[in-house]
């Protein structure tokens, strides 16, 4: 037994220490910091000024910050409907008995392994380009001049462009998770329902969907987590100065921390940056509880 104790200590300690140092301690400290006014991120503790919930109040009073949350919620709800909906559709198609299933799913998942910077560059510099871009040439070729002339990267369209290109890349991931759930549903249920005369479409709505509630919960939670960390795509769509149409809380936090090109709109303040982190964390926690309270899956045997 003593040998086991040595092993447990030797195996658990290094990773636990790293985990505490890089997760536990910083999380607690961030919550603590969010109640202080801290000018420079490197300021020592003695120069911090306690100001209660003022950081939260002044953030909520800032129009640009509120815009960043509206954008995030738009990404969460609109993007969520698009991503989870389309990925479910794709999974259903793959499950319906098409040939070359492995090939289709591999290609659809592929964007997930590519660097987001490279992916976004392909979209911004090629697909959305207004002179030689894919959408421009495609709509021109089929004679839809009005669609061909859409300026995808103009302030009006930028958010749509951002949302479409971001969702396109993530759909493959959610599709695979849906598919893994579908594959766990017993073929007997489908057989029984088709003997009872259910069509493929009816089977999808009355058999597959109800049995996928657990997967739906997983996907929705993962979607909330990935939305809370939304950063790179927004940065790439407006690389120098944050645009009101694409700004998200993480971008705003980055500017709070290190200053921005448009310095007049955002003043540097590490305490407020910490408060933004806490608010994003609360967003994830709230979504987690909402998802778990509203979707019940415990009564279903798979």
């Amino acid at each position: 037994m003593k040998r086991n104790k040595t092993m447990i200590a030797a195996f658990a300690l290094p990773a636990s220490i790293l985990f505490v140092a890089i997760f536990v301690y910083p999380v607690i400290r961030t919550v603590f910091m969010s109640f202080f006014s801290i000018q420079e991120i490197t300021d020592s503790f003695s120069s911090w000024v306690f100001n209660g919930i003022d950081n939260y109040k002044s953030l909520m009073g800032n129009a640009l910050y509120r815009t960043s949350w509206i954008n995030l919620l738009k990404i969460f709800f609109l993007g969520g409907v698009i991503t989870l909906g389309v990925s479910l559709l794709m999974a259903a198609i793959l499950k319906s008995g098409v040939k070359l299933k492995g090939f289709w799913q591999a290609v659809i998942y592929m964007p997930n392994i590519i660097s987001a910077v490279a992916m976004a560059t392909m979209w911004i510099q090629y697909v959305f380009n207004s002179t030689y871009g894919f959408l421009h040439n495609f709509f021109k070729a089929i004679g839809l001049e009005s669609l061909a002339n859409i300026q995808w990267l103009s302030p009006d369209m930028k958010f749509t462009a951002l949302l479409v290109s971001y969702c396109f890349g993530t759909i493959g991931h959610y599709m695979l998770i849906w598919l893994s759930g579908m594959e766990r549903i017993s073929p007997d249920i489908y057989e029984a329902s088709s003997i009872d005369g259910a069509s493929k479409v009816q089977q999808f709505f009355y058999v597959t969907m109800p049995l996928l509630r657990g997967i739906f919960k997983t996907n929705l939670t993962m979607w909330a987590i990935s939305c809370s960390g939304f950063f790179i795509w927004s940065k790439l769509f407006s690389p120098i100065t944050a645009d009101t149409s694409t700004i998200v809380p993480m971008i705003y936090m980055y500017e709070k921390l290190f200053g921005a090109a448009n310095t007049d709109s955002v003043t540097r303040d590490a305490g407020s940056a910490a408060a933004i982190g806490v608010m994003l964390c609360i967003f994830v926690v709230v979504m987690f509880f909402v998802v778990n309270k509203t979707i019940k899956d415990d009564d279903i045997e798979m």
Partner: protein
Amino acid sequence: MAKKKSSQGLNMRGQLKLAPGYLVLATWVSFTFVVLFWVVGASLSTTGDIFRGTIFDFSTGLHFENYSRAWIGSNVSVYFANSLVYAVISCTLLIVLCAPFAYVLVRHRFPGSTLLKTGLAAASGVPIIMVIIPLYMIIARAGLLKDEMTNRIVLITLFVGTKVPYTTIFLQPYFDSVSRAYEEAASIDGCHPIRAFWQIVFPMAQGGLITVTIFNFINIWNEYFLSLLFVNSEKLRPVALGLFSMINGMQFSGDWSGLFASVMIVFAPTFLIYIFLSKYIIGGLTGGVKG
């Protein structure tokens, strides 16, 4: 014979019914291929041809020098080497740290083990911004970003540290499925449990170890946010950050064909991994999630 024929006929009709599905898949996949094909074309073309929309004419031949210009002139070789070093070292450390960690967490109960398990699960939902502010504060105040070597160590430590929860959670079911009989037999033969783990249990979780390493490698290769904050000099930039700075410089240099060549260089390693190892990637995703 006759039976086989009729089932084939049914199959044909069945496939015909799936036509709308095929149409959706084909459209989606064609779009992906058109974009990739165009970027490959643009990377071998000239900036002039890109803007004239005549990249596939190759009127002046294939411009492989775009790649050498990007590789050397735009420092992509430096970024590439950095990312490779960061990814390889981090992935190795993650396995060395997390494999034994995951193993003791599934096999033994010890003071704090339940708390650690809960903590790891909770950490996978914590936005990265919740941890970086205090870490930046401590690291910058200690002056660790001023020296190249310490800056590299900081980066690798952060890549490893932030991936500990994911890697450990991922590996747990793989170690759980290894039968305890092996360790018991080893212990009867007088083998120390530490040795029994590395020599007997560790190799048996091979599938999980390979899969999680592939995911970690791809994630660290593509990593952007931590590098943006913690990389203090151009010489230490990984590919994603290097590519981003190139894009920002593009309005001054105007070298679009070079940009697309750089995109291809950044894209190539993870793409090659995917071509050869997609079985692990797709298997790891579809097998690892509980409904």
